[in-house]
């Protein structure tokens, strides 16, 4: 267990593992996402109230879900950075922050597009929407802070502290619809209860969520590999890898 944990800290070891994992992640992700989206957008039944406009859920929910779990993953990595000073954890945080920002933006955007016909407004300052906007700004903050400090070690620590401070926003997003009166509806999916949605709607939704997770995994590996190559460009194994690639 600890051995694997310490191995994970080695960029070279991770680079090799990522190489082997990536085709499977991409293949599985694309297959699941395509299946989920085609099923959801074309074959799932209409909603009794919203008609077809509810179908944006098949994009909105996966991106919102992933936007939050990416942040939680970043927070775990940030804790690892602070406690174990593991370089790879910082590589992860810096590589996935822009991905998380894009997912958050996508969630906000699709929500606005859906909100206009359903609620009657693009935007409202309710607790759910506002806390999600704060998440977007947190991602921007992480990206900006990481880019602003050129020293690798101090940048890693500063970013980790910011990520950890921001993680309190995640339960606020999750429970905002229960703690306060909001325009956003409460969660359709709860861990303890049956989803308030029939299976022919939630199965494609689940497929798209899983698919997006796998694609995120693939993309995170790809971005981390790039970051590792840049950071380790002076080491022997990277030089050998580049030479081997050229010949």
């Amino acid at each position: 267990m600890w051995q694997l944990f310490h191995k994970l800290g080695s960029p070279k070891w991770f680079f090799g593992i990522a190489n082997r994992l990536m085709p499977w992640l991409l293949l599985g992700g694309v297959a699941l996402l395509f299946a989920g989206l085609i099923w959801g957008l074309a074959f799932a039944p209409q909603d009794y109230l919203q008609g077809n406009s509810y179908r944006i859920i098949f994009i909105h929910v996966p991106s919102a879900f992933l936007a939050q779990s990416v942040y939680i993953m970043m927070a775990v990595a940030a804790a690892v950075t602070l406690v174990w000073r593991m370089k790879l954890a910082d590589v992860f945080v810096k590589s996935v922050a822009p991905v998380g920002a894009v997912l958050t933006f996508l969630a906000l955007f699709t929500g606005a597009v859906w909100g206009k016909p359903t609620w009657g407004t693009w935007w409202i300052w309710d607790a759910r929407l506002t806390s999600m906007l704060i998440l977007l700004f947190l991602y921007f903050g992480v990206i900006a802070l990481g880019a602003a400090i050129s020293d690798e070690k101090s940048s890693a620590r500063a970013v980790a502290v910011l990520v950890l401070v921001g993680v309190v926003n995640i339960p606020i997003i999750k429970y905002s619809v229960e703690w306060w009166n909001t325009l956003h509806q409460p969660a359709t999916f709860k861990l303890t209860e049956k989803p308030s949605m029939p299976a022919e709607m939630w199965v494609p939704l689940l497929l798209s969520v899983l698919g997006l997770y796998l694609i995120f995994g693939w993309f995170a590996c790809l971005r981390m590999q790039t970051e590792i190559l840049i950071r380790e460009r002076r080491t022997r194994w990277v030089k050998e890898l580049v030479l081997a690639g050229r010949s």
Partner: protein
Amino acid sequence: MHPIRKKRLTIVLFLLAGIAVAVGLTTYALRQNINLFYDPSQIAAGDAPLDVRIRAGGMVEEGSVQRDPESLKVEFRVTDFNSSVLVEYTGILPDLFAEGQGVVAMGRLNASGRFVADQVLAKHDENYMPPEVAEALERASAGTHKAGDSGGPETAY
């Protein structure tokens, strides 16, 4: 675990706990400002200020919508199944607006307890279902409930 790492881990955990408490207390203190709308019980209890722009939210009471045939004026009661408040609004209502649906209205509460709205938004609930299922449920509940029974939130599809 190495003692230095243990110490760092404790600092990280303290940091998290401290921030969580601080944010928790702040949001608790601001809870009335974070709430998007007052529900009818709060308005009935006098918690909502008069003649200030506020939002009121709840379910549109069954059988309470009255449209003025001459203009776009609409009157309806918004209820949370304890109390209700009379809302008047002039304008186009969102597509999802219907009796038994959730709404959030923005406007002013006047001295006579009427809520004069200048914006009405539809609030969607967390339930999704195909139209056939909704019809079947409707038929089932029409069979078991007496006419005029507005039902609890779970039957108010």
